[in-house]
């Protein structure tokens, strides 16, 4: 549904977006990750036709956003960053306006408005002016606007920003449900969201795509992927590490915690993957009193950090 090819945007001398290409199909939820200022919002603004690209092309449902903007925009719903809404209008008035401008009239419009009001839990504030809304409600009002015409393509710029944990959960559920039939792109800072919602994730840094894959694949790139954490009782830390270094699969062992006779260590494998390491360590440690033994799946925030700021990530490790 969305096809982005070699997209670029230059602001003055700064290349905000530099040769980004990807595509999103129906039934896919693409998570867009990256540090602040990486070019996420700029990319989304170009996809939705707000900013004209300096190079490359975007097509939505087969319509080029520059050549056929109206047709492409019709297929899209867009939640801009910070969820702007006309502050002088009531929630009802605002949704009515956006429905009307999306070409919905009469009964179709009424139905569309009441549908999104239910979906986004706006019933309580329906006749309140947008100006007086709390951030969470304003955010959901703008979100409601983006799905009012039940679009095939959704572009959401930080849809869970500023929501409380319950609301975040609701919005994630909503995105995941809608993602079954639509093509959705959403950006976020929150990595757990990627796990919860996305079928695929892209990490973008300094205007370029630096990683692209399923959350699972990305996690595999983590140093942590396949690492095994072991907690034993009544053994000295040095003895534990010495013993674990003898296990052939182990690359590195670090002591996480050593307190009151309880030692926690973490062993990193030479090659990430299957549970072979956990098994080997379990065997090596069989004479100790094991309190805990589990293998890590890899951490997205780790991958994120090592990809977007390689220097500091090494220092921290």
């Amino acid at each position, binding site marked *: 549904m969305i096809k982005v090819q070699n997209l670029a945007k230059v602001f*003055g001398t700064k290349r905000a977006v530099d040769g980004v290409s990807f595509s999103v199909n129906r039934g896919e939820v693409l998570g867009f990750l990256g540090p602040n200022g990486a070019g996420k919002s700029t990319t989304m*603004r170009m996809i939705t036709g707000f900013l004209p690209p300096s190079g490359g092309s975007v097509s939505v449902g087969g319509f080029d956003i520059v050549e056929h903007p109206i047709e492409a925009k019709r297929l899209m719903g867009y939640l801009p*960053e910070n969820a*702007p809404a006309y502050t*002088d209008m009531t929630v009802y008035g605002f949704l009515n306006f956006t429905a009307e401008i999306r*070409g919905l009239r009469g009964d179709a419009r009424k139905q569309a408005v009441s549908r999104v009001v239910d979906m986004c839990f706006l019933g309580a504030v329906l006749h309140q002016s947008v100006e007086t809304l709390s951030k969470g409600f304003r955010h959901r009002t703008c979100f409601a606007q983006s799905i009012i015409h039940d679009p095939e393509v959704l572009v959401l710029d930080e849809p869970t920003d500023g929501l409380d944990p319950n609301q975040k959960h609701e919005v994630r559920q909503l995105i995941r449900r809608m993602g079954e039939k639509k093509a959705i792109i959403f950006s976020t800072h929150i990595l757990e969201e990627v796990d919860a919602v996305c079928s695929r994730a892209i990490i973008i840094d300094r205007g370029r795509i630096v990683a692209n894959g399923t959350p699972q694949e990305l996690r595999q790139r983590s140093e942590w992927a396949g690492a095994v954490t072991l907690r034993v009782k009544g053994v000295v830390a040095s003895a534990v590490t010495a013993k674990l270094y003898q296990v052939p699969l182990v690359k590195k062992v670090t002591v996480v915690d050593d307190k009151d006779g309880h030692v926690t260590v973490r062993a990193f494998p030479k090659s990430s993957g299957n549970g072979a390491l956990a098994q080997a360590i379990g065997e090596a440690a069989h004479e100790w009193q094991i309190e805990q033994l589990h293998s890590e799946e890899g951490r997205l925030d780790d991958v994120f950090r090592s990809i977007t700021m390689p220097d500091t990530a090494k220092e921290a490790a």
Partner: protein
Amino acid sequence: MNSWRNVWTITKRELAAYFTSPLAYVFIVIFLLLCGFFTFFVGGFFERQEASLVRPFFDWHPWFYLFLVPAVGMRLWAEERRVGTIELLLTMPITAWQAIVGKFLASWLFLALALALTFPVVITVNYLGRPDNGVILTAYVGSWLMAGAYLAISCITSALTRSQVVSFIISLVVCLFLILAGFPPVINVIEQVSPKLVDLVTFFSVMTHFEGFQKGVLDSRDILFFLSVIGFSLFTTSVILRTHRAG
């Protein structure tokens, strides 16, 4: 047909926005008070002893508009940019033109309403004497067209900035130039410098073109002048909006 429906949707929203804030009411009250005060006290409506609205009433309009029209037009784009709703508006399936025209039309209709509310003056003059109502009508049309020209200029300045205050001041200055280019004391000075320039300068003045309407003459050149100022200004607005986005 569809495009006019989009324009009308925008116009309705903008008009509603005027009336949900106190600005609209304040504007109308100030405008009517000014009209009344200047017509009857400063303009010497009664002292003139003639059944005409031209000198005591319509003569002041270019000056009223100087302050009031930029105040009406200043929020059109500046507010959209400040709040960020421009991003919503321009990613809707409408063209930038439909948005520009819709917004302009809303403000222009609003000014028409303000102007229409001066009707007691017309009733007064009809009650006291036998004025030429044809002249009054053309003068109203001219006044509205002139307000449209000011408004279109305010659209440009509003698109230029996020700040309504800056927009107000710039459009006031630009409109002041359009008035002064036809203001007798200024023309006299220009005439002393170079008599050839006078025609050129006065051609750009709203005063010169409003003059005809006040005499009851619907000159196509005057109408065309105001309409082309509006057209040109709205076009400039679209260029500015596009440049902003081009980065």
